[in-house]
């Protein structure tokens, strides 16, 4: 099959639909290795988009490449938890053995080694991706074996299967992770709850949707969600019932009454991996929650936006969807109800943290660059394809399914008065038992720490880099919307850890993940990274720290979206709580020139082969 045949087959499979560009690009790259200029032209012509727009999408995502990056592409996860497990040494070792510089392609075009943002394997790192397949628990032995396999050009299928094993590590389950619900239970409960007056009369989907408002079944299911006081699990905590209701009642003036349900599984916040486990251990619960949402708002199509790092979950999840279709839980006539139609498709991302922001996610779902939209209007009225769209986190949908089955009153009895239900925590870092812990809301940090075997804890980063860093004086605080809200990450640092390096790692993360749309975030995150590197290099001063605060104020005030607003949090928190970690790196607490005369002579020294005292301007004291 020629390259053009490969591309055309993929294009045909996606009906030459530009909104499916992400999947077209990914599948093409999987087969052809990279996205060559002629490939992009061919795709652009087929979907009838300007070529530059296709190239713009391809250039936005870390996992698409418009130049060849080797037949083997190794990307080391570079979250602080991977660092703490020694990924830097392993990366260096791999590069040395491959005679390679990180970030460069080998001269024979065989392999490239680089780093990538957290791959969501923090409880089983150091982790990496090889050709976008997740590998966990790297060791020096594995690096050696991997280098051999790469040198011998062994296909990935022949690599040891255990390298690709991803453990769930569920350490504590509660209502979500311990549920015994059978597939379809929640949907049958929804349907049984209310008579479906007026619905049987509907002979097609459109009239079914138009009767939704008068139809008591969905309305009663919505009442349960509202009664439960369920709030979004992605971090922002918007009340789910209100979101669904707003989407359900959004007016559609132009006769196109489609509505959409989108599950946000773009779990990009470093340190978070609970959605991966939910989708592995409880996929039915998640899909059922999405179907309940479809039933409530009158949507017939749902999408799971799965982060590119979880590519390995695509086939198992599609198998679950196929089974649910066969069981009559997806497709037409769900749970025996004529007119109750809903289906789900998995959309794979391609390495962009920003797509966790719901409007950027929708842009990406439409095949575009993942740039957050201006709001209002919000997705509940103008979402996917400009239609009313519910975007919820994986865990929110899972909880919704349980609420649909067991009722809002039951759910509200769990947790605290303002934060009902449970929260799944992804715990990693300095503890004996990293993994997944589900607790009712209201649990204190101090309760969680001993449970996961953490000792001598110095700091905990809750909800990832964009969240909050707390020190030991705050361990009495609770995981709850009214105290510490969280999307689920808890990274633990013991008293041997350097909190400056933690913050520096996060600064690099934000600079790498800024979408670049607005000036303050695009440039500011890079300036912050440079400030942190300057301090790390021993050239920082009080002035550098003041700069960080200044940039923080600008980002807070002028950024386009939450990424910019929170990009300074790690520096801000650690500067407040762990200031000595910064100050001991400053030569003086006063002015320090950023230009180092002596190091400027390094090249001259190298050229002349000198390194004696006379070739240095000053000697380190």
């Amino acid at each position, binding site marked *: 099959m020629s390259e053009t045949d490969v591309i055309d087959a993929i294009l045909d499979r996606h009906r030459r639909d530009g909104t499916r560009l992400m999947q077209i690009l990914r599948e093409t790259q999987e087969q052809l290795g990279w996205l060559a200029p002629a490939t992009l032209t061919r795709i652009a012509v087929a979907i009838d988009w300007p*070529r*530059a727009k296709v190239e*713009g999408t391809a250039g936005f995502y870390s996992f698409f490449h418009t130049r060849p990056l080797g037949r083997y592409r190794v990307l080391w996860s570079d979250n602080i938890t991977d660092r703490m497990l020694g990924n830097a040494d392993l990366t260096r070792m791999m590069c040395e053995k491959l005679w390679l510089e990180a970030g460069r392609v080998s001269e024979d075009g065989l392999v490239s080694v680089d780093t990538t943002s957290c791959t969501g394997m923090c409880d089983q790192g150091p982790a990496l991706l090889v050709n976008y397949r997740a590998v966990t628990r790297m060791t020096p032995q594995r690096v050696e074996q991997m280098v051999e396999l790469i040198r011998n050009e062994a296909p990935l299928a022949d690599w040891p299967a255990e390298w690709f094993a991803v453990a769930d590590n569920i350490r504590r389950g509660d209502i979500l992770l311990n549920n015994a619900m059978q597939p379809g239970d929640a949907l049958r409960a929804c349907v049984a709850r209310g008579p479906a007056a007026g619905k049987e009369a509907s002979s097609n989907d459109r009239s079914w949707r138009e009767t939704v408002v008068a139809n008591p079944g969905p309305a009663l299911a919505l009442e349960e969600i509202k009664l439960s006081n369920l709030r979004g699990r992605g971090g922002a905590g918007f009340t789910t019932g209100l979101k669904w209701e707003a989407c359900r009642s959004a007016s559609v003036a132009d006769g196109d009454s489609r509505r959409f349900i989108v599950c946000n599984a773009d779990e990009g916040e470093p340190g978070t991996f609970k959605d991966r486990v939910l989708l592995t251990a409880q996929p039915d619960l998640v899909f059922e929650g999405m179907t309940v949402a479809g039933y409530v708002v009158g949507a017939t199509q749902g999408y799971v936006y799965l982060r590119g790092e979880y590519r390995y979950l695509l086939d198992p999840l599609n198998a679950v969807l196929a089974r649910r279709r066969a069981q009559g839980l997806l497709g037409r006539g769900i749970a025996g109800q004529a007119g109750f139609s809903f289906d789900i498709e998995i959309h794979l991302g391609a390495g962009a943290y920003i797509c966790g922001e719901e409007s950027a996610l929708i842009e990406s779902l439409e095949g575009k*660059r993942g740039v957050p939209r201006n709001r209002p209007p919000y997705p509940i009225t103008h979402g996917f394809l400009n239609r009313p769209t519910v975007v919820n986190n994986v865990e929110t949908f899972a909880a919704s399914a349980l609420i649909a089955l067991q009722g809002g009153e039951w759910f509200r009895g769990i947790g605290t008065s303002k934060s009902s239900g449970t929260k799944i925590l992804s715990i990693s870092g300095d503890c004996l038992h990293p993994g997944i812990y589900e607790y009712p809301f209201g649990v204190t940090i101090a309760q969680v720490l001993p449970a996961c075997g953490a000792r001598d804890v110095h700091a905990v980063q809750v909800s990832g880099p964009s969240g909050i860093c707390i020190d030991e004086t705050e361990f009495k605080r609770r995981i709850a919307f009214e105290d510490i809200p969280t999307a689920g990450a808890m990274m633990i640092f013991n008293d041997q850890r350097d909190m400056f390096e933690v913050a520096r790692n996060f600064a690099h993360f934000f600079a790498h993940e800024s*979408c670049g749309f607005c000036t303050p975030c695009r440039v500011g995150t890079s300036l912050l990274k440079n400030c942190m590197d300057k301090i790390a290099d021993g050239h920082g001063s009080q002035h550098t720290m003041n700069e960080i605060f200044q940039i923080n*104020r600008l980002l807070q*005030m002028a950024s386009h979206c939450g990424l910019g607003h929170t990009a300074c949090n790690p520096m801000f928190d650690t500067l407040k709580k762990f200031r000595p970690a910064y100050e001991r790196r400053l030569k003086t607490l006063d002015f320090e020139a950023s230009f180092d005369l002596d190091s400027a002579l390094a090249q001259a020294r190298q050229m002349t082969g000198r390194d004696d005292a006379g070739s240095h301007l000053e000697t380190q004291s």
Partner: protein
Amino acid sequence: MSRMNEQQVFLIDGRDVPFAPGQTVMQAALDAGVYIPHLCFHPQFKPHGSCKLCTVKVNGRPATSCTLPVAAGMEIESETAELKDKRRMLLQMLFVEGNHFCPSCEKSGNCKLQALAYDLGMMSPHYDHFFPDRPVDATHPEILLDFNRCILCELCVRASGEVDRKNVFALSGRGITKHLIVNSESGRLGDTDMSTTDMAMSVCPVGVILKKRVGFAVPVGQRKYDTIPISEQFGDAPNAVLEQTR
């Protein structure tokens, strides 16, 4: 009977500004002759709010004035020391992320970035320069592209797409590596259907898209912003006389 023509107003820096329903703060302000600094806004295009120069405070909270719909009674702060300071920082960021050498730039005097920097009293770039590597594109017989000066306002993208219907420009990359690209497989402007009569030719606020061989037809010193600051001749308002130097 109520007076139909009674216009609703909102406040900018304590001054009453009338507005028509559906207008943004920026549109209403410019129509009323009140200047709010901006680079990515242009009255002909749907605002997208990326440069953030027009950040103001609305009832005490920061907002982007080009995308913010006006409501009666809104109290906008714009010309405050704090906001001017933030705008200067944004300008400095734009200067250091690209390669801007005003003395040798043929757009000097007609450049909005430069004019705003003068207007806001930006005395230095303040931050370390990024010195990005951005080769120029001289492949088109009549047009030169100097990407070194691009501030990513997307005005050429919008003009070429919405008005010229050619889609000559788009953005690629992400974050600090975001950059302007050209709609051809070679990546060269010479291989596109761009022409000097396109609107995309005239919207660049800085010196990226330049017509060849006319660079210094108007000498430095006699150019648009050489004597009158940008805040006193913001030709973007639909009714304004001054717009565009060709």
